[in-house]
């Protein structure tokens, strides 16, 4: 048997629905159709009345999820593409994010954001939005990079008492495969050492973990041992694990698919530099997407985002500093 990242997301929802009567799924086309990406395939049939099609009303969808959560439910909301969550931005950041702090009442919603670039998807079907949601207080932001994490973190997202923005990467949906679903997982907020190495540390998350691993392969052939960390969640962000790795390697490269101004890579460098400055043997570096909308044409897109090739190049540069 082989399970894809997308299967894992489907299975996690099936499991959550089966185990917890408080769970329901709400989103455009998630019902009989099974969702634009088939992440809810058959769920409406398996769990009648608990997987509901929503109108094209992202703001009201999230508002409804908040209400349901206050009333004791555990809604999972699928936004058809992460990019469309701008239309729900206010409810996510100002209503859900502030709920517990203002009222003392938890607001356990899970907002699934099919995120990230895929070939030919263009400016409005390719965005990664973790930096926006992580900036606002009150939200947990998950960015699973593996089939196992897609499964266990989504279950965890539903279980925890806070609003979770679950950034699942569309590029990983079909290609990434595992043999089986995990029965245990790292706790939320813990980064994973995806590959050990002693010469430098690459911190990545979501699809970029795989570009980093491929770069590490390439560099291994050149005799360089790269440690690759997978952040798993960007808020909370596991500074300790990052610092411990940098303490071993002395060199840090942060890789993100998002735009270069602000975001995860800046946040990691700021933390490591202010708290672990002396661990660094060289200036910390980062690699992000270009500061333009995400281009449609594959040729442009391939250069817009970091890839194994550019990660390897940035690594070589870092090693030379």
């Amino acid at each position: 048997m082989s399970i894809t990242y997308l299967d894992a997301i489907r299975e996690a929802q099936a499991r959550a629905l089966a185990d917890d009567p408080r769970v329901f799924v709400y989103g455009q086309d998630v019902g009989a159709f099974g969702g634009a990406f088939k992440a809810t395939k058959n769920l409406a049939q398996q769990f009648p009345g608990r997987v509901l099609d929503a109108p094209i009303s992202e703001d009201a969808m999230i508002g409804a999820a908040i209400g349901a959560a206050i009333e004791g439910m555990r809604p999972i909301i699928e936004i058809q593409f992460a990019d469309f969550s701008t239309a729900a931005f206010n409810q996510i950041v100002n209503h859900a994010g502030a709920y517990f702090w203002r009222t003392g009442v938890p607001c356990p919603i899970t907002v699934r954001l099919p995120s990230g670039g895929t070939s030919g998807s263009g400016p409005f079907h390719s965005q990664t939005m973790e930096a926006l949601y992580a900036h606002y207080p009150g939200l947990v932001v998950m960015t699973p990079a593996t089939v196992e994490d897609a499964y266990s973190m989504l279950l965890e997202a539903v279980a925890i008492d806070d609003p979770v923005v679950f950034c699942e990467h569309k590029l990983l949906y079909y290609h990434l495969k595992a043999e089986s679903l995990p029965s245990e997982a790292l706790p939320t907020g813990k980064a994973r050492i995806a590959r050990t190495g002693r010469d430098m540390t690459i911190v990545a998350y979501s699809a970029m973990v795989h570009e980093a691993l491929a770069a590490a392969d390439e560099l291994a052939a050149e005799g360089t041992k790269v440690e690759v960390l997978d952040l798993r969640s960007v808020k909370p962000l596991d500074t300790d694990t990052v610092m411990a790795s940098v303490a071993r390697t002395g060199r840090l490269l942060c890789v993100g698919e998002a735009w270069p101004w602000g975001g995860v890579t800046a946040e990691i460098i700021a933390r490591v530099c202010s708290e672990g400055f002396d661990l660094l043997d060289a200036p910390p570096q980062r690699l992000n997407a270009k500061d333009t909308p995400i281009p449609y044409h594959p040729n442009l897109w391939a250069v817009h985002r970091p890839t194994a090739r550019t990660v390897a190049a940035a690594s070589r540069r870092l090693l030379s500093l």
Partner: protein
Amino acid sequence: MVHGVVSHETASEVSTIRETYLAAFRWMLLARILDDKFASLYRGGKIHGGVFLGRGQEALSVSVGLSLRKGDVFAPLIRDAAGRLAFGEPILDAVRTYLGSPLGPMRARDGNVHRGRPRTGLLPMISHLGAMISVVNGILLARRLKGIEQGVGATCVGDGATSTGAFHEAINLAAVEKLPLLLIVADNQYAYSTPTSRQFACRSLVDKALGYGVAGSTVDGTDLGACMQVVGLATQRARNGGGPQMVVASLLRLCGHGEHDDAGYVDPELKRSHLGRDCLKVAEAHMLENHWAGPGEVQNWRNDAMGQVEEAVATVQREPAPDPYKENWCSLASKNLCEGFSGA
């Protein structure tokens, strides 16, 4: 479309109507006196930030609060002191929130009209207009999913809020799900300084009901009896499976947008018109005229209300201010997931 017309009642009906009317009037009075107190505390520099009153909207607001029962949900907006009280919000909650007492429901974290207790069905508004409606939807949807098909959800918005995308998405969603939503639109002729002519172009906001496929009614917001009847009927229809109900009330905001605003832009013609009547005075005159209460009684109620308000204020003024060094500054219910930011 249902209009607030007075029909002929039997004697026992009259007596119930009278009782409810008097109860409503007393909540209105209490709300007005509470509002006046906040205005005076504001002028005295005792309140941080703004003060937003419901002056002139008490008849409508109280009708919503009174038409609801325990187990119902209410998401009031800026001008709903009367409805809140009638729904069961303690005066202390209002005073503590305005004065920033850590003992209040918002623990000094949020203020003024941004207060509530979700566990008791009273939702604390966020500022973004239109945002509360879909949250009420969600509660009603959740109940349906849990198999509890009772309880209505009421929420209020102003004429200005009908222009928000949030309003539109939420009422449409409620219509699609046929939720027991009571949506009260207080058309008080202005959104801050903006007259309705710059806000919408339909004849009446109730014309929107048809476009959502929900029931719509209109009511004279200055007439307590009419408000109680129209809002009451709409609530009943929602309760009985009639789906979302939109009630549009016409009235005039008899104060500034907030107490910082002298409302100099309000058309004097409007003030002199039927819409400009003070619903509290109209209700008082109605009671006196019908001999439902005498002037002495009303004065007693007034004194009682003033006593309650003064006592609450005195109590809260003795309460300690919040101590920032006792805050844990953690936004999450999952304490273990809170990050300690070194530079925050």
